[in-house]
Every structure is written in structure tokens, then in C-alpha cells.
């Protein structure tokens, strides 16, 4: 039983990361109406910046963390202004193709700047474990869960209690009317991209210590985040986080108790989750079903 709970806790930790990245996807989907396929590479890029700051410029972890978030925010806004805004009003396929282009571009840039070598990244949390009722829990897992939850709570408060947050929601829900009440809609959508980049950066920096940092680090995490976002409902921020946690725990348990799945077939299981949810309940657990008028 102790082993079961250990699997649950480590599942919650990876689920927190999936949830953070899924939340980034949801933010962009609400703002721009598309799925950002470059979200994973954006997160990895941010992680490389943090790595450079700590190893080459002698910064300690948390200041580097903060600087990285700031840089990522600016980067996210910049990407939106430079390449997304011009195609935003066109067909969805065009925006999707642009994000695919970004994926390639960022992935290549990372290989170009930092070379494709895998790099070990230090963890900000102590290495050991502590025991509660016979269950050994890693500090790393607890730290990851705490940071993810904190990010989600801060973001929720921002959307709920600040004027900018309100304007952001308005711009996403109804751009035309938001403009009429004096909200600068393109700026708000750019802000959404910036926040998504920040969330991605957090997810990336929390993932890096447990795997190794290389340009493709977030590729599979992105698929889990897709699955989490779809499971929770692509328009629901709460759903993204809950979906991420369910998926993290679920995949961990399936991977360790069903031999057929093991470590190799987790990605296909996530794919199966995506397909089943889309076919059975396209709105996800928390989303509102969309009614299309003809």
C-alpha cells in the first residue's frame, strides 16, 4: 500500500507539471482560439535560459528563476505580436501551421545556440525523502506540487481580482464588445501569450531536474498536456489543472501496475485518452458543450 501512495504522490508531481502546461494551452486557446504546438519548445527554451543563467553567469537558482519568468513573458508577448497577430483573423489551419513553424524554429535555435547535448540540471529542492506513515515522499515531488499550485493560485487571483485580468477575460470572450468598452484587445491577447509562456517556463524548469535538458525535452510532456487540456475541457482553466493531476496519477499507476503498458506505452495511453474524450465527450469534464449554429 505504501508503494501505491508513493506512486500517487509522484504522479501528482508530474500531474502538476502537465497541469501547468495544459493551463498555458488553455490560456492561448481562450485568447487566440488555437492550440499552440510550440508551447513545449517555448518552455524548453525558457529552461535553457535558466540553465545558462545558473551555470554560465553564476546566478543562484531562485533569482535565475525570476529572471527567466520575466524574459519568457516578454518573449511570449513578442511572439504573439510578430507572427500570430497577422494571421489571427484567418483560418485556424493557418495559425496552427504558424505555431508548427515556431516549433521547428525554436527547436532548431536551441540546437544551434546550446548544441543538442543533454545537460543535467540542478534541482532547487533537497534530494532526500521524508516519511509519513510509512510512505516515503521525495522533497522534489512536494516542491514541484507546491510551485505548480502556487502558480495556478496566483494566476487565478490575477484573473479574478485585478482589472487587467478582467479585461483579459473580456477580450477573450467577446473581442468586438471588449473593444467598444475601451479594452485594447490585441494587447490583451498578447498578454495571454505572455502568461502562457511564463506558465510553460515554470513547467519546463520543474521538469528539467528529473529528466535531462535537451531541445526535445518537453515534446512528450506537451502530449500529456494536450491530453490533460482535452480531458478537462480545452476552454476550462480549472479543468486543465484537474485534468493534469488525474492524468499524472493515472498514467503513473497504469505504468507501474499494468505490465503491458510499462514505461513505453504511456504516450499511446495519453493518445487514447485524447481520442476517447474527443469522441465521447468533446467538451471534456469541465467544459461547456458548444452549440454550433448553421
Amino acid at each position: 500500500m505504501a508503494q501505491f501512495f508513493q506512486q500517487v504522490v509522484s504522479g501528482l508531481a508530474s500531474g502538476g507539471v502537465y497541469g501547468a502546461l495544459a493551463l498555458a494551452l488553455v490560456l492561448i486557446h481562450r485568447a487566440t482560439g488555437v492550440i499552440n504546438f510550440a508551447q513545449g519548445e517555448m518552455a524548453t527554451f525558457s529552461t535553457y535560459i535558466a540553465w545558462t543563467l545558473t551555470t554560465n553567469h553564476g546566478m543562484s537558482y531562485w533569482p535565475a528563476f525570476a529572471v527567466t519568468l520575466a524574459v519568457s513573458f516578454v518573449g511570449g508577448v513578442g511572439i504573439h505580436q510578430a507572427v500570430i497577430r497577422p494571421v489571427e483573423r484567418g483560418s485556424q489551419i493557418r495559425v496552427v501551421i504558424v505555431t508548427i513553424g515556431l516549433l521547428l524554429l525554436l527547436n532548431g535555435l536551441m540546437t544551434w545556440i546550446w548544441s543538442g547535448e543533454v545537460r543535467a540540471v540542478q534541482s532547487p529542492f533537497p534530494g532526500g525523502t521524508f516519511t509519513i506513515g510509512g510512505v516515503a515522499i521525495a522533497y522534489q515531488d512536494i516542491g514541484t506540487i507546491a510551485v505548480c499550485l502556487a502558480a495556478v493560485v496566483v494566476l487565478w487571483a490575477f484573473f479574478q481580482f485585478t482589472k487587467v485580468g478582467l479585461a483579459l477575460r473580456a477580450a477573450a470572450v467577446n473581442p468586438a464588445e471588449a473593444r467598444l468598452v475601451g479594452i485594447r484587445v490585441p494587447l490583451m491577447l498578447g498578454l495571454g501569450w505572455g502568461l502562457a509562456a511564463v506558465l510553460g517556463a515554470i513547467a519546463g524548469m520543474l521538469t528539467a531536474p528529473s529528466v535531462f535538458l535537451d531541445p526535445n525535452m518537453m515534446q512528450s510532456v506537451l502530449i500529456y498536456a494536450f491530453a490533460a487540456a482535452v480531458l478537462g475541457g480545452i476552454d476550462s482553466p480549472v479543468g486543465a489543472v484537474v485534468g493534469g493531476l488525474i492524468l499524472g496519477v493515472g498514467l503513473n499507476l497504469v505504468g507501474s501496475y499494468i505490465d503491458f503498458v510499462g514505461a513505453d506505452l504511456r504516450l499511446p495511453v495519453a493518445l487514447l485518452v485524447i481520442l476517447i474524450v474527443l469522441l465521447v465527450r468533446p467538451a471534456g469534464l469541465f467544459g461547456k458543450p458548444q452549440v454550433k449554429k448553421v
Partner: protein
Amino acid sequence: MSRTTLRTLIVFVVVGIVVFALPAFVTDFRAQQFSYVGIYLVALIGLDILTGYTGQISLGHGAFMAIGGYTTAILMTDHGVKDIATIPIAIVVTGVAGYLFGLPAARLSGLYLALATFAIAVATPSVIKRFEGFTGGGSGVNLFGTPELTASLTPVRFAGLELNFNNWLYYLAWSVAMVGYVIGWLILRGRTGRAFRAVRDSETAAVSSGVSLARTKALAFGISAAYAGAAGALFAIATTYVNPDTFPVALSIFLLVGVVVAGLGSLTGLIVGAVFIQFMPLWAQNVSKSPGAPAVVYGAILILVVLALPGGAAGLFVRLQQLTRRGRNFQKP
């Protein structure tokens, strides 16, 4: 015969002659590179039928190529089937797989379809690794030097010509590409093609005109996958070796890049797309020797094409044609 049909025929014959004569004028190494252009062309025709003509995006065509490639490799090594004979089987197997995937996928709208197909592309290598007993796992399947692989050890004699492996491969790939091109053209100009375009332009209008959405989309997926299967089979023969990394996510993405650069919904532009996929990494080496350079160039060009040239190469061609026609009209008094 209408004028456009005649023009298409003339263009096709000219291209055919150029393709047939090309190996006589280029080095063996170039012939090999041009065979890959032919292989990509086959895959691009399939993807264009699905994405360009039916409006269903696919980021997972590399996975269908993997099915075709592995069908060929396994048939050749485990069952002693000659390489050419495996191609029709690979086409059928992949076509059926595509049709079966298309049945549920037909219910997914644009964005979700992109997502589901992307997930397939990412999951494919790990699935191949998992079923090791069947696919050879991570170490892959080697075809080089097997008696089933034509012309790999001794040159093949064909119609009085002696062809080494690269030349043989070139003619094989381009024969499949030309036949595939004609079949694609025939499909698209008839009733089925009209149904595809109707689904792309307005699903509501298509349904009102009696087109079954589910059946049409699944059919488009099946046909498109069959092309990818043929390309995958050729790819396995060309590389003489398949392993899970032969069909990475990047391959699926590059195919999409090829179709977009060529111009969605244009068969003639696809040759430009195929040339682009094959030679872009080499040109990118001039920009920088870094292994990341090709991806940067691919990505930048993809974004630029979408922003500045939505019609791709085919669109550019049409626009140039309009310009010259306008110029001619100016000269008329």
C-alpha cells in the same frame, strides 16, 4: 478535350521526359537524392488530397509512412517477399489503417484533428519499440544485402539498360510517383474530388448536397494514407534499413511544410514541395554548419510562406501568370 486538360497532358509528358532522361546527366549521388524527391512527392500527393483538397489537417502522416515502411521491411525479411511485390501490400495495409483511423477522426473538427494526428506522430516510435518481437524494436530491421532487395548487390538489367541500385531506385520511385500523380488527378477531377472539395469549402453545404461527411472524410483519409504507405515502402527500400527513428515526428512536420510551401490544393506545385523537403537541409548548411540550422530555416520559411505567400509556390505561379497576362493586355491598343 478542354484546354486545361490538354495543357495538363502536355506538362505531364514534358515532366515525364525530363524525369526519364535526368539520370543520364547527373551523378549517381544526385540520382539517389532525386529518388528521395520522388518518394516525398508520393507522400505529398497523399497529404495534399487530405489537407489541401478535403481540408482535413494531418500532422501524423509520418506514422502512416511508418506502417508502409514496416510492412515492406517485415514482408521482405520474415516472409521472403520481393521488394516490388511488397509495395502494393503496403499500400493496401496502410490504406485500410488510414480508413479505420478516418472513421472516428471524421468527427473531429480542424483543431482537434491536428492534435490527435500530432499525438499519433509522437507516439509512433514508442509503439514500434514496444512490439519488439514483431518490429525488431530499437535495433530495427536491416534490408541491405538481402536477396529480396533488387539491385542491392548486382546491377539489374531492365529493357536493355543496366541499372545500379541508385538508378534503379530512382526509376522505381518516379514510376510510383507518376502513376500516383495520374491516379490522384483522376480521383480529384471526378465525383469523389468534388465531394472532397465540397467538404473542405463548407461542410453544411456538402451535407445539404447529399455528401456523407463521415464516409467522404474516411475515404480521404484512406486514400491519403495509401499514398503515405507507398512512400513509406519506397523509403524503407531506399534507406535499406528501418528503425523507430526512421519515422520521427519531424518527418510528419516536414511533410506538412512541403505541402504548405507547394501551395495547398495544387498537385503541380507539389514537385516544388518535394524538392524543398529533400534539398532544404543541404542549402541550410550554407547558412550554418550547426545541426539546428535546417530546422531554423524550415521554421522561418514556413512562417514566412503563411504570412506573405498563402498560396505557396503554386500561388506564386498563378500570380506571375496574371501579371504577365495583364502586361500583355496593356500592350494591346
